[in-house]
């Protein structure tokens, strides 16, 4: 029995995942971007703090740490297949990715959310091109329920009431209603939140806002929100820290990008089945993530800006999103422009095979979205 779907008028909520998130996994980084599922496979791959200025044989990428493990693998394999091109990937943050792509200090920025119209008005030459489908998991550390074969059911309302301090123990009756026949322990709940601006916070609070209007009215959604003070609450700087801390903290609940699921499981965390808009609890699997995205495919606009949180698919996982590449259509060097086009076209075709995606639990783009992405890529010149 899951929570009923919430579709109240949510004043202020709306839109999109936006943009500029200072994203997902915070902080500048070096090799620390990798997570439990991915590996840097190529000697040619360079992960740097800052992209360097380069000729057409070297592409600089900076941005989403959620995407970083996959980008690392792409970069290594692409160089093996196209030896003349090296991709320098820098795991920074989505906000930095957008900023660098906009300023021309990186050839490709990556972000968990699409550009805001504010960014596009500031720099009209920017495109946001979907690279893969991602999702967000909700992890917990509840003794006795962390086995990968066992999952606690949660919905937006209950999560909101945990994060606003109304529900303080796992044995609370409101959680029990979602988990009929299961007796959860009377362990205090320790909510984990992301510090600073984060694309993951945007996705998570969007889910809470769409499912629980009270949260939307009181707190709302955003890359950063004024979290209600909850005793014992912990604040973490990155996806990696979220799942690592959760693994060490009994009673925790946390949210993180799907590419950190393997790491979370490795840390001994469980992950929840989340109620979708139809009220059905769904786990983040290839089937449920794809089902959720499928309901948006036909209405995806040519610039591929679309929010897919809490969509209408009755069998879909509710927190899904595209990982985007942000690229300028106005490249100074035609050879560099061609190199960028070739790499991005490779990423959304060859790079979208499960060979690359499985380890980080991303899903491939639907064919019609690939077609739209190719049309956008063709504009880079």
């Amino acid at each position, binding site marked *: 029995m899951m929570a009923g779907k919430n579709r109240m008028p949510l004043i202020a909520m*709306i*839109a*999109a995942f936006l943009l500029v998130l200072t994203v997902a996994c915070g902080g500048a980084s070096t090799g620390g971007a990798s997570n439990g599922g991915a590996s840097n496979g190529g000697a040619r791959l360079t992960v740097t703090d800052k992209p360097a200025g380069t000729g057409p044989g070297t592409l600089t990428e900076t941005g989403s740490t959620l995407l970083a493990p996959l980008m690392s693998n792409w970069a290594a394999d692409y160089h093996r297949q196209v030896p003349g091109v090296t991709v320098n990937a820098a795991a920074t943050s989505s906000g930095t990715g957008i900023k660098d792509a906009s300023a021309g200090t990186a050839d490709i920025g990556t972000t968990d959310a699409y550009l805001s*119209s504010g960014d*596009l008005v500031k720099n009209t030459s920017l495109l946001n091109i979907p690279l893969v489908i991602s999702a967000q998991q909700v992890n917990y550390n509840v003794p006795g329920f962390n086995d990968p074969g066992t999952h606690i059911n949660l919905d937006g309302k209950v999560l909101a009431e945990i994060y606003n301090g109304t529900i303080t123990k796992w044995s609370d009756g409101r959680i029990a209603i979602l988990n009929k026949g299961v007796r959860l322990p009377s362990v205090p709940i320790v909510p984990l939140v992301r510090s600073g601006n984060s694309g993951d916070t945007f996705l998570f609070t969007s889910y809470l806002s769409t499912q629980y209007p009270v949260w939307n009215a009181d707190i709302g959604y955003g890359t950063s929100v004024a979290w209600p003070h909850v005793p014992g609450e912990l604040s973490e700087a990155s996806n990696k820290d979220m799942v690592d801390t959760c693994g060490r903290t009994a009673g925790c609940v946390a949210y993180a990008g799907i590419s950190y699921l393997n790491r979370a499981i490795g840390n001994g965390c469980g992950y929840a089945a989340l109620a979708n808009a139809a009220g059905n609890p769904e786990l983040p699997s290839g089937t449920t993530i794809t089902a959720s995205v499928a309901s948006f495919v036909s209405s995806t*606009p040519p610039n591929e800006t*679309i929010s897919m949180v809490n*969509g209408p698919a009755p069998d879909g996982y509710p927190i899904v999103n595209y990982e985007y590449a942000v690229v300028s259509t106005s490249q100074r060097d035609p050879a560099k422009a061609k190199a960028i086009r070739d790499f991005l076209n490779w990423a959304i075709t060859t790079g979208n095979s499960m060979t690359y995606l499985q380890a980080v639990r991303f899903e491939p783009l639907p064919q019609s979205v690939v077609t739209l992405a190719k049309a956008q890529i063709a504009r880079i010149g």
Partner: protein
Amino acid sequence: MAARSWAATTPAKLRVLSVALVLLSLAWGALAGWTVSQHSSAASDVVNTEQPLTVAAQQMYQSISDADVTATTTFLSGAEPPLAPLQQYRRDIATAAADLTTLKGAANGNSQLTAAIGKFSASLPLYTSYVAQAQSDNALGYPLTGGSFMQVASEEAHLVLLPAAKTIYSLQDAALTSASDQATSLPPLIVAGVLALITAFVLFRAQRWLSRRTHRVFNYGLLTASAALVISVVWLAATFAVARSDLSQGITYGSRPAGTLAQASIDVQQVRGDQVLNLISRSGDTSFKDNYQQVRAEIGPGPGTLLDTAAASSRGPAVDKITAAKADASSWYTANDQVYNLDLASAYAGETHLVTGSSSPASSGFDRLESDINNAIKDDLSAFRTSASAGANAFGPLEGVLIVASLLMAVACFFGLARRIREYQ
């Protein structure tokens, strides 16, 4: 030899002089009449064709901007938005579509204008389809998806529709200025003036020669022709001076500040729209705030800003309204600063209330500022119509007067010299 000796005779000289003066009189009438006809037609074109087209282009530009901010703001009202703003959005779109039809019909031959109109025409249905999708998603309970479509719609408005509308307005405004320049251009008038001087010189020399040759002080025919020439030249010059002044004033103190204010209005709508989109997108970046600071600096008040420029070139009641707009803009900015401060603190509930509350300073301040600016635009356009119509009407009966005067000159010259010629027969 015989012909040369005949030509040297006084009757022959009188006949040549008669023919020359008749031709000069008729040429003066034709040239001056044509000049007046051309200028009068151009002045009429300014008032009856170019100015309405410029107003249509300006209205289309403002309508799209208003539609965008109205649709975006209405979206925040939830799944069941109030009817009034929805109707306002539909009115804006209908107005823009009607203006587009008007402008399409007048774009013949101007490739730049045709291209911009083509771009606008292609984008308008796309824009409305995105808004419809956003409204539909919102009504079905998917506000986040709807919000992303609202953002896509706004991007279409800001990246395609509004730039195209601005181009159309700029080209149409240039056509208005060109028509006004043509209506008051000096070269044809100078040519007519030179011909008038030549005619006057010939008339003067002819009368002096006749006076010396015939010992008659006055030749009444030539005197009448001279008087007709002087009257028609003075009338022509005075009319041009009045028309030029009126049309120039209409452009300088009416049409131009109205255009400047229209741009200010569109910028104000952009600030408001960005404020709402920021609330929708919650991107956590500062791009909307950066855009706000930049656009605010363009709107004014302050030296060189749109409001100050418009105030400097407006006259009459518009000035008071622009003064009010400046004061209202300053207090509205204070409310906007508060909005962005709340955004920075992630205090979305307070930010939402401040942006959407009907009596909040951000919301009511926007309405007041828009009202000030639009009222000033109306005053400026009214000033333009008054001045330009006066300029166009100044030509009045002048064309007929010049033709009659030139015929009178020709007849007077002919009869005035015919009497002298007859004296030698």
